């Protein structure tokens, strides 16, 4: 009986992820736009760095090769380093109402959908980027095998922090009645500056990186990337990630509990 329930639970989530994975293909070839956009972005960044960091020089602990690897891996895992679940949009347009009728917990539904959303970009952008990296003059390999193992621990922690930040944004949407696209835009900016997913934090001026390193945004993105490229001590980075996961999970759950009565659904 228990195994039957577990099997049903797994199959339901797998079906949700599969629907999300193949959803973009329903739009036809237009899915190629977002793919092209990501290729353009990373190609521009890879062209910029050599003009700033001469070959052989070390800037704030980063050699040119490490920065290039950092930028490439940041693009490869961009969806995982900047987690966005569809819950904010669903809350706003009312689609969440029908989700309450699905025979699955709400949170895991959206998590499964998010993971499904990752499939196509992984296949069309991330994998080709890793394969093309040597042709682009970038070494895509981690600093060492141990670093790769630690990265595989750090990345899920980063994703968990990202989900908590996403849920905090959802609470904010409920509390201040703000459209998710407006908040998403502001989040994108904060993420691009504070998370280190775009530019390594150590390369920011005025020692801003030292401050940003302590924020959850950095634990969600910069920490796994620094572990992968061997530009940060893994132990404090992982410890801080664990602290942020616990703090954010407790805080966001409490915030949601006091805000859920304010949920109002629109849509149509």
């Amino acid at each position, binding site marked *: 009986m228990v195994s039957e329930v577990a099997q049903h639970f797994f199959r339901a989530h797998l079906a949700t992820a599969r629907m999300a994975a193949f959803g973009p293909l329903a*739009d*036809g*070839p*237009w899915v190629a*736009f*977002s793919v*092209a*956009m990501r290729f*353009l972005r990373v*190609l*521009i*960044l890879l*062209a*910029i760095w*050599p*003009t*700033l960091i001469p070959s052989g020089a070390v800037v704030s602990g980063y050699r040119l090769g490490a920065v290039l690897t950092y930028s490439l891996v940041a693009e490869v895992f961009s969806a995982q380093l900047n987690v966005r679940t569809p819950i904010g949009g669903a809350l706003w347009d009312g689609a969440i109402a029908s989700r309450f009728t699905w025979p699955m917990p709400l949170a895991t539904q959206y998590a499964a959908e998010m993971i499904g959303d990752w499939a196509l970009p992984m296949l069309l952008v991330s994998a080709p980027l890793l394969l093309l990296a040597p042709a682009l003059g970038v070494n895509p390999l981690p600093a060492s095998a141990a670093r790769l193992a630690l990265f595989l621990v750090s990345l899920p922690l980063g994703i968990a922090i990202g989900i908590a930040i996403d849920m905090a944004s959802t609470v904010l949407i409920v509390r*201040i*009645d*703000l*459209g998710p696209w*407006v*908040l998403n*835009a*502001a989040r*994108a*900016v*904060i993420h*691009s*500056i504070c998370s280190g997913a*775009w*530019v390594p934090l150590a*390369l*920011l*001026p*005025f020692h*801003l990186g030292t401050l940003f390193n302590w924020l959850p945004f950095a634990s969600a993105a910069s920490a796994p990337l620094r572990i992968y490229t061997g530009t940060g001590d893994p132990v404090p980075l992982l410890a801080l990630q664990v602290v942020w996961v616990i703090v954010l999970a407790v805080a966001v759950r409490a915030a949601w509990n006091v805000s859920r009565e304010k949920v109002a659904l629109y849509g149509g």
Partner: protein
Amino acid sequence: MVAETLRLLGAGARLNVARILRTREQAIAHTLTDFIWHSGAMVAPILVAVRFGHIGSWPVAAVVFMLAYGAAVSSVMDALGDSPWYLSQRIGRGQLDHSLIQPQPLWRTLFTEGFTPFDFWPVLTLGLVLMAWSSAQLHVPAGPGWLGLLAFNLLASIAVETAFLYTWGCLAFWAPRGAEEVSSAASGLIGDLSFPLDPVPRPLRAVLVTAVPSGLLSWLPSRALLHIAGTGALDAWLTPLAAIVLGAFALFLFRLGLRHYRRTGSMRYTDHGHRR
């Protein structure tokens, strides 16, 4: 013709003020987040430029000018309404009919609807102030001729973005379901360009000023106006020229698509009004 267009723009401005006054908290929140979005997009590249003192042959002030130019273009585009971003959606969903039945030419409806000049003034002001500051830092001789060229390029960049979005949006005339979201996808592709493109390989740069003309929204005009190393004598006229070519192409496609639409109408709904 002009009077009626101005009257409609005035009506849009009045509605914009009324909405702000009636929903003050939301208006403040929207304006603030929009300001963070546009101004924040400038911060990361500026921080990198400050850290290294330059990006390629661009000094910090030139990078600031480029990003401020881009912010000014974005804010004016936003203030002029959202029809370019939703053209394919409106065609795909048959909502173009709502515009076609209005007792005025279609171009005027598309040009005047959604005019919200008071939502985006903080970003525009920031862009203009930063352009003034950076051009002063770079000792640009900002005479009437240069200012005229700046204004001309700003208009051209706006025209380029509009033409690009319209060109892609027109696909929905022939593929109303498949291309329904192509306008928003195209806007994601053209996006805001954050870095000077000089170090980018030549073939990629060629793509970014032609097929995906992001480079014409800030990089190329700024480079020409500031006479950055490597600028040609006629570069300041390239964006206006591109605006004319792209604009003519978009207009041709739109008219062609509209002719097709007149014959077929919206294919999204059945005779009983249900969505296919």
